[in-house]
């Protein structure tokens, strides 16, 4: 597709679990939900929290991780790296990468992040993004690669996010992608 290689990228997604004292079953049930933390390649000074069940996304400074450590109420359960190479195709930025647990080469999936640079409006950019993905799917299908790319657009409004695209939108998408990877893995097994 004549993309220009621009360098490497990496984001890290962390699953947190609550620390429950005294075998409190009621509290364990109440807090049984995915609580995710995310550091993103293009926001080195920010950290994001996502709770999909509550349609909640938070943007914070990196120091929020230190605060969470000091509170000792949640611990890291597992962390996964999303990393690979970034390409430029005209007005599009493509980041292709593998998903694997940190300190492991065990591949959990492949992720493709597509960014259309000229437009920040979700509504206005929808058609051109759809057209690009169509071209991409066609190009990929010709290579007979195993698996397929799946795209699900979240209902950003449920997360309180506007039509103007932001890093918080990206954080929500990472959470959705993670849920899809888990669902796919469960189906395969």
């Amino acid at each position, binding site marked *: 597709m004549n993309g220009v290689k621009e360098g490497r990228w990496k984001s890290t997604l962390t699953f947190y679990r609550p620390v429950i004292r005294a075998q409190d079953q009621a509290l364990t049930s109440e807090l049984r939900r995915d609580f995710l933390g995310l550091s993103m390649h293009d926001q080195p000074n920010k950290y994001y929290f996502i709770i999909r069940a509550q349609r*909640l996304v*938070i943007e914070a400074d990196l120091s929020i991780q230190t605060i969470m450590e000091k509170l000792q109420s949640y611990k890291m359960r597992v962390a996964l790296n999303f990393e690979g190479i970034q390409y430029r195709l005209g007005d599009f930025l493509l980041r292709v990468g593998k998903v694997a647990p940190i300190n492991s080469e065990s591949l959990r999936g492949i992720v493709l992040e597509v960014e259309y640079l000229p437009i920040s409006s979700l509504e206005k950019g929808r058609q051109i993004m759809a057209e690009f993905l169509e071209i991409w799917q066609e190009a990929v299908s010709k290579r007979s690669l195993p698996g397929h790319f799946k795209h699900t657009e979240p209902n950003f409004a449920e997360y309180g996010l506007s039509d103007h695209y932001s890093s918080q939108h990206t954080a929500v998408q990472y959470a959705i992608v993670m849920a899809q990877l888990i669902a796919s893995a469960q189906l395969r097994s």
Partner: protein
Amino acid sequence: MHLGLRRLGSTPLTLKSFLTYGIFLQHVEALEILLQGLCGVQRERLRTHELCLKSAPNLGAVASEVRLLCDLEQTEPTWTVRHVGGAMRGAGAEQISVLVRTMVESKVSKNVLRLFYALGYKLDHELLRVGFAFHFQRGAQITVTVSSVNKMLKLHSTDEAVPVTPGIQLVEVTAPASPENYTEVVAAVSSFCEYLAPLLHLSKPGISTRVVPTAAAATASLMLDGGGTTL
């Protein structure tokens, strides 16, 4: 009034002073004139909604507390999460005239209260601080805040807040520091606080302080002079 030192994150310490009983309201304007003269900077208005959250029973290795601060002075309110750690203890801590505590802050987006509720935290109490602050450099980056502490009669109702101690305001002096430089910061803050002595007296938390006998005279002098008097 007392002195406290806080450790910010893993490196800097914040020096913090608290007024144990508060400065009387009639002396606040004089204090502002004095601070204006000493700091050489414009004061900033302060209106902060502070929510103190505590972990649910059995959540966490230990019970924990976190504060959410909403700056209501901004056009669009901004939120900060603050964690204050335990006080430094030992012979070294007792030698200095300040209380050393770790403090970590993070700017955060506006739905942070929903986040902590979802994580199992409960609202313990909330306050509204209204007043002013001076930020300046004088041997250390010092911040002096003078504020009334108000409680809300209805949940989150910042428009219906009443003073916790009517007629008395809280004065705090803080400065960031690190393990390597906190003695210099302590000296800088202590030195600065000496200039406030005609109106205020600082002491460590837990050590009772006293009404400054010169407060009324100093106030009268400052009000008459508009800050030109050397105390």
